[in-house]
């Protein structure tokens, strides 16, 4: 067991996979010598050579587009977009090919690859460096969309994503990259993609979140317990496509009250899907409207004001208290 940051844990998962399978490639802008702008791929080029950990010219569409061709030849590319905001340069390949080839060719070509990118706000970065586009990708059938919330599940989920026969969009919450360390077992482990977890058991209300806002939500749960005598159950979705509908409904049927928390803008965000799944399956258990504590339907502000914009524990506490007292 070692105490690792999320960056180290992700690095470990890739190193393990590259050592096990010569078909695993890492590619992207500055992933090689530089080890990635967040150092997530640090040392991989040194260890596996420039043909396994590949620095590419500056073109996201070509990174994704050429990776598609590599999958046809049996490679498993782990591509990195340097920031969430630049994944859109490649959107037509992800939408138009990566998620479609299996269906289009009835399984002949399947595009198994991992599309990694730093995700979300909170690190005082420039415009286009703080986006949270998980709903955009979750709406695209054929992809799986994963968001870890800590070093240990990051390592396990990345391994699962690499082993997955399906393309996986893997969002790495950059606010958590170095936020804390966690014990990570020596042996590789996996986590099933599409399953969430109970991050904190409780009985009064269900708080549903994922990625970086899971931390704010857990903080809120402590504050709710300490100061409001509210025992919140906190769910960590870990994956938003597929989404763990059973986990959600099980908890909701117990508590009858729900707050959904994510940093992406609210309108047509994943929070809405969570609400819809609850209404479809557990409407009659609901004792209060479901509140969404999310990013606002604006552009996330340049960094001087981003903290105001992002969901935080205080916002979650307020919404939860109102939900419980409804």
């Amino acid at each position, binding site marked *: 067991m070692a105490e690792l940051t999320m960056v180290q844990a992700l690095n470990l998962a890739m190193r393990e996979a590259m050592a096990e399978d010569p078909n695993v490639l890492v590619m992207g802008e500055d992933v090689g010598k530089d080890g990635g702008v967040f150092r997530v791929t640090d040392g991989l080029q040194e260890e596996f050579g420039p043909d396994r950990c590949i620095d590419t*010219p500056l073109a996201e569409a*070509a990174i994704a587009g*050429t990776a598609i061709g590599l*999958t*046809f030849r049996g490679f498993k590319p782990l591509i990195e977009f340097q920031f969430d905001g630049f994944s859109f340069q490649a959107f037509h390949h992800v939408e138009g090919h990566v998620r479609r080839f299996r*269906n289009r060719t*009835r*399984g*002949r070509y399947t595009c198994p690859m991992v599309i990694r990118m730093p995700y979300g706000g909170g690190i005082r970065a420039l415009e286009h460096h703080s986006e949270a586009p998980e709903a955009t990708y979750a709406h695209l059938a054929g992809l799986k969309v994963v968001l870890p919330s800590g070093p240990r599940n990051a390592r396990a989920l990345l391994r699962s994503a690499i082993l997955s026969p399906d393309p996986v969009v893997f969002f790495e919450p950059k606010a958590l990259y170095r936020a804390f360390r966690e014990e990570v077992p020596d042996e590789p482990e996996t986590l099933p993609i599409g399953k969430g977890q109970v991050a904190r058991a409780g009985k009064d209300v269900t708080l549903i979140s994922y990625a970086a806002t899971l931390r704010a939500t857990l903080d809120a749960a402590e504050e709710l317990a300490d100061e409001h005598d509210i025992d919140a159950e906190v769910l960590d979705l870990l994956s938003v496509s597929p989404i763990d509908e059973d986990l959600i409904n099980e908890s909701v049927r117990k508590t009858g009250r729900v707050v959904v928390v994510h940093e992406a803008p609210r309108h047509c965000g994943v929070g809405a899907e969570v609400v819809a799944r609850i209404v479809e*399956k557990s409407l009659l258990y609901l004792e209060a409207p479901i509140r969404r504590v999310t990013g606002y339907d604006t552009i996330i502000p340049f960094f001087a004001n981003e903290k105001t914009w992002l969901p935080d524990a205080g916002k979650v506490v307020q919404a939860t208290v109102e939900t419980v007292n409804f």
Partner: protein
Amino acid sequence: MPREAIELTNKLENLSILDQDGNVDEALEPKIADADLRKLYNVMLKTRRLDERCLMMQRQGRIGTYGPCKGQEATPLGFAYAMQAEDWFVPSYRELSAYVWRGWPLGKYLVWWGGNEYGSAVPEGVNDLPICVPIASQCQYAMGIAWASKLRQDDTVCVCFVGDGGTSQGDFHEAMNFATVYNVPLVMVVQNNHWAISLPRSKQTASPTFAQKAIAYGMDAMVIDGNDILSCVTAARESIKKARDGQGPQLIEATTYRIMMHTTADDPKKYRSEEEVAPWLKKDPLIRFETYLRNKKLLDDKIQKLMEEEIKKEIDEAIVFYENYKHDPYEFFEHMYQEMTPELAAQLAELKAYREGPAPEVSASNGNPQVSHA
């Protein structure tokens, strides 16, 4: 510190061997075995006939919108001929002759235009990609395929086709740049058929040739008569050999013409004159090739009649195959992931219940505490 010209190190060439009257430049004439010449003609003819039948079937409402390839049979065929079976072929959507050469069942082609994914379920063991609809996006996965050849150190080559319109897309540019940076065995063929739907070649780009776009990547390139099978075979052999030998990507501009409408949904009368089309009818690659073979005594009326009969039979059979193809109404759920997710399974059950009546357990599936169905 003078002001001086920079010499370009790359070269452009023009190649034409068999003219529109069937005259051949003997110095340049490629060596092709007689049997191969006949087979090439056979495939070109078969492509033409299948294309014509598709057009007819579209008019009869038996397939959907159809995009004909009439007059563009020579270039894909020349390249397919020069390729090895294990080489990779990445088409756009007017490369029927290459599919035919490489042994695709004709029925699959009909199924594609008939609106079923089976048409792009590439036969196992055939290193081809299906028709690609988003213009120029295929350039990028072709580059990835070629890159794999280099990374695997096998000696396969990837041949990719794109249209004149496709060269305007960023995908074309990025793929060419990657291809030259990594020096991969990619042969990129631009079929300049002078039109992108209604946009004439003159408005697609201001560069006098498409070939010279290669200079942007530090490459040589060639313009060839894309309606001349001999030029196509020659250019294909050379470029594929260079690519295979590690000389990196190759760019070929094949000059041809879209004789027909863009697709059957298109009406070229809206944007071009008959006079523009007329001279191109005389440059038909099939007629020219026929003349060449007749001059060489490799073709006569009898052989041709036989060929036509065999081809008709094969196409008839393909149509029978197509028209008897069983559509599975639920198959679209099956190939989204290797294993169907529970969510998709539930949606499939929903659809089945709708089409076939509710399955026994449906009424309880909603899971709300009080459930009462009518």
